[in-house]
């Protein structure tokens, strides 16, 4: 099991009801972690509508997770 920090923004923050949480997971990749959290919290957005970031940098869904990583799942952006 790995101890990770997950930060939530926009629609995911509202659906989770939290800005941020620490969690223990057996997920091996960023994609597996999102699927696990989506099943747990009922997030409306499927993985193919999002991007992942690990430790404040964009990362592929296949990125391997390490103890202490910070994960963010990015809903479709809408700046400007």
């Amino acid at each position, binding site marked *: 099991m790995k101890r990770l920090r997950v*930060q939530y*923004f*926009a*629609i995911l*923050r509202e659906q989770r009801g939290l800005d941020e949480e620490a969690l223990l997971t057996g997920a091996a990749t960023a994609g597996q972690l999102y699927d696990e959290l989506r099943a747990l919290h009922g997030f*409306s957005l499927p993985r193919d*509508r999002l991007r992942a*970031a690990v430790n*404040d*940098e*964009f990362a592929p869904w296949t990125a391997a997770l390490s103890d202490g990583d910070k994960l*963010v799942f*990015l*809903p*479709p*952006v*809408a*700046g*400007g």
Partner: protein
Amino acid sequence: MFSISAKPIDPALMARELADEAAGACVTFEGWVRNRNEGRPVLSLDYEAYAPLAEKEGARILEEARAKFSVLKAACVHRTGALALGDLAVWVGVVAEHRGAAFEACRYVIDQAKMRVPIWKREHYADGSSGWIDVSSGTAR
């Protein structure tokens, strides 16, 4: 320099920071909060940013603009927080020797920023509802 700001943007101050005696052109863009979106009356907006990655990705866009076009300096600042109609949401400024490069680079920066920088917008509508804007699906959720 690309930054995220929780405080109002001062365009005059931003432009002064681009001052360069080699520049013959300064092109700026201001994105304002508009009173309608997709035909629905909008009363106000909230912007939220993942600041560490937004500033990194924004800096990459400015660097790309400097590499693609003959520009001397480029800067962009984007607001976060609650904004009212008419407020300045995003400012882009580019200085170059000649106007062509400055116009093109300014357009490049705002277009790329809207597509790539992790910033989200919630619109509040006149009917009391609100939703996160999803440009990729063309609807508010």
